[in-house]
């Protein structure tokens, strides 16, 4: 077996120099434009770290406190910048600690290149100290993975890794490099990869499919769009807005599609899915044409597939052919890059407005407002709600903040109530639902977008899953704002226990430490509030601070997140209480 694939390449540095493999790793990263990487050193990656020390003026290494933190920080960096995030770790436990972040990046289509050190090639398969088969372990959760055992392979494989990670539907790539390959010498010349023979990164949009889609959309009486992250990844926000406005189509978003169109847009009808808005979920089963754009019909979106949009003709735009008919049978599939496909669609659409149909969404919104939203963001009961915290953050940041949420009730509240007026503003773990994501991801996001407000919204459970990254915040002086919504419960699980397990709160109540003291122990300015009258001042102070800031908000212990579609139920059976 060979390890070479026929690739297309473009020389970017043809002054060949004789260098060790470890230096080739760093020079390759620089050639790919990497300026920040996140990682943790160890025995099998030490030669590369030695080179990073030498090149520290050109590439900034961020020492996280755990490799999982490195992977999530690289994800945060990638999600807000649209560039490839890079994480680096040693062999064995260092490499396996990256896996959760890699799996998260895979399901949320986040471009990552993870580099792991490996024991020397003569020790492979011998159960050597800190040896694991990381290529084998990572195979099901990577877009591509590869092991390098010869120094000469380093530039070519890394070039291919970056090309694969960022092109088409993005994803994580893992490159494992043996220690002898890092020490070995090579004649270094860097050629950027511009194509891989066996990989069609962006299928060309078929104009006939676009025409068929346009015909269906033009004939629709009650059309509805559900867009996903594919719009953001394809940089197609302007094209989507033009399509929506020309055809007058009420448009909803999946959790990862949030922020592609501003929250305040009159045709933005809210979020679909398990804790999405009432109207778009309910009316999914009344629209006559459902237009899915860059979304994958996740089970959290569709509920029971047997009762999902059965009355509608389905038009699906996606870059990934394997998504077509995977969960929902389509009438017309348009495979290709969303920017290109939507640009082709626009001139074929008839200018329309669907006022009566849009009014149906507004009417259902009014019901949701009365029964749910009003209580969440304008509460009259004594305890603080998560929703009013989000409302206050919206006010203080004028809806311009990038919200990095963890996983649980607070995540759903953040996605429901944050004002997203700038694209790439909702950074969360959508597909994998990884608790512990937000703190390190917020570090990466803030470092990639230092001019933006980056606010991490975290529950007391998830915060303690990667609490050690407060050390990274402090050491790197990252002015990220950390809001812990503390209800002393694993809130979402508790909600399910309340609703479906007769309030048997098995192992969901948390006795928490003094978070403020911990944050202050990391030299981070910190405050705890528990009263409504303290909220406005605390959020103002946090947003105004030029440094990192930790705010603990003690919220109602047993609040629930509604609306809710119980698992396996139809989207029409969405509950308001």
């Amino acid at each position, binding site marked *: *077996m*060979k*390890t*070479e*694939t*026929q690739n*297309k390449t473009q020389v970017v540095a043809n002054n060949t120099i004789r260098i060790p493999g470890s230096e080739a790793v760093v020079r390759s990263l620089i050639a790919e434009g990497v300026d920040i990487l996140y990682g943790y050193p160890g025995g099998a990656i030490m030669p590369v770290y030695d080179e990073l020390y030498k090149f520290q003026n050109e590439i900034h290494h961020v020492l996280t406190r755990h490799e999982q933190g490195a992977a999530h920080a690289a994800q945060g960096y990638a999600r807000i910048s649209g560039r490839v995030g890079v994480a680096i770790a040693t062999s064995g436990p260092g490499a396996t600690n990256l896996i959760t972040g890699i799996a998260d990046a895979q399901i949320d289509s986040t471009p990552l290149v993870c580099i792991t050190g490996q024991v020397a090639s003569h020790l492979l398969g011998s159960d050597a100290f800190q040896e694991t088969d990381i*290529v*084998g372990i990572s*195979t*099901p959760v990577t*877009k*591509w*993975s*590869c*092991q390098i055992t010869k120094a000469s392979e380093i530039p070519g494989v890394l070039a291919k890794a970056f090309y*694969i990670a960022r092109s088409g539907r993005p994803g994580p790539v893992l490159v494992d490099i043996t220690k002898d390959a890092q020490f070995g010498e090579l004649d270094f010349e860097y050629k950027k990869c511009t*194509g*891989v*023979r*066996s*990989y069609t990164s962006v299928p060309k949009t078929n104009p006939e499919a676009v025409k068929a889609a346009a015909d269906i959309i033009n004939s629709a009486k009650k059309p509805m769009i559900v867009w996903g992250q594919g719009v953001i990844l394809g940089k197609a926000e302007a094209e989507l807005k033009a399509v929506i406005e020309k055809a007058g189509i009420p448009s909803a978003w999946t959790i990862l599609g949030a922020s592609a169109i501003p929250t305040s847009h009159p045709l933005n009808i809210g979020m679909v899915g398990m804790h999405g808005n009432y109207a778009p979920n309910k009316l999914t089963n009344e629209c006559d044409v459902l237009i899915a754009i860059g979304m994958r019909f996740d089970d959290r979106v569709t509920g029971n597939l047997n009762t999902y949009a059965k009355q509608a003709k389905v038009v699906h735009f996606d870059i*990934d*052919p*394997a998504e*077509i*008919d*995977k969960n929902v049978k389509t009438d017309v599939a348009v495979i290709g890059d969303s920017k290109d496909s939507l640009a082709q669609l626009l001139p074929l659409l008839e200018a329309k407005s669907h006022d009566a149909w849009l009014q149906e969404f507004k009417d259902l919104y009014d019901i949701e407002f009365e029964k749910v939203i009003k209580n969440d963001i304008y509460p009259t009961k004594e305890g603080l709600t998560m929703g009013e915290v989000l409302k206050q953050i919206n006010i203080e940041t004028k809806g311009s903040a990038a919200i990095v949420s963890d996983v649980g009730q607070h995540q759903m509240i953040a996605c429901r109530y944050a004002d997203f007026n700038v694209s790439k503003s909702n950074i969360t773990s959508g597909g994998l639902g990884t608790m512990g994501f937000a703190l390190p991801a917020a570090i990466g996001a803030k470092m990639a977008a230092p001019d933006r407000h980056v606010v991490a919204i975290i529950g007391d459970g998830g915060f303690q899953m990667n609490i050690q990254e407060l050390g990274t915040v402090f050491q790197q002086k990252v002015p990220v704002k950390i809001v812990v919504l503390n209800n002393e419960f694993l809130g979402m699980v508790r909600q399910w226990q309340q609703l479906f397990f007769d309030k048997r709160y098995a192992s969901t109540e948390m006795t928490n430490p003094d978070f403020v003291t911990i944050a202050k122990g990391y030299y981070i300015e910190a405050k705890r509030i528990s009263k409504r009258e303290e909220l406005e001042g605390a959020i103002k102070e946090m947003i105004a601070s030029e440094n990192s800031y930790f705010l603990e908000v003690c919220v109602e212990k047993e609040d629930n997140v509604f609306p809710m579609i119980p698992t396996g139920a139809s989207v029409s059976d969405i509950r308001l209480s």
Partner: protein
Amino acid sequence: MNEEIKTFTISIYTENNIGLLNRISAIFQRRHINIESLTTSQSEIDGVNRFVIVVNITETQAKKIVGQFEKQIEVIRAFYHTDEQTIFTESCMFKIKSALLFEEPQIQNIIKESNARIVTVNKEFFVLEKSGRRNEIESLRRDLNVFGIMQFVRAGRIAVTKDEMKVTELLLAFNNQ
């Protein structure tokens, strides 16, 4: 509606790279699909390998799984075909005590009638090789089992399709880009 489970031959044209088998088998494992047989070898195209995998699944599953194979970076193209759309065969070997050749004259008739081929004979044992459809091989195995089989091994299905598989055009298109 319950779809009929049928035998499908899945052909995957790939780069000849380490680790690809792992990726392909993981796709079956994740979906709880049992592999009936798997063969991998060079294909008609220089530098391109071909997996031939037999599975019992529904056509919807076959279509989806082929989509997942084509997503893999080093998979060039993947196809699925029914038995009617392919020409296929399997081969096997039997190791049998040499003494039986002389003590049980019926064995010679079985070998002749089954179109099996004697690969080697020595004092202790002889080896038979047989190619054909699964039922022919099973029939021979049943016949020989009566006399005692020292070793038996059957290789995976190999198959070619009746229709053309346009892999070469895809590769030419890449080279001409």
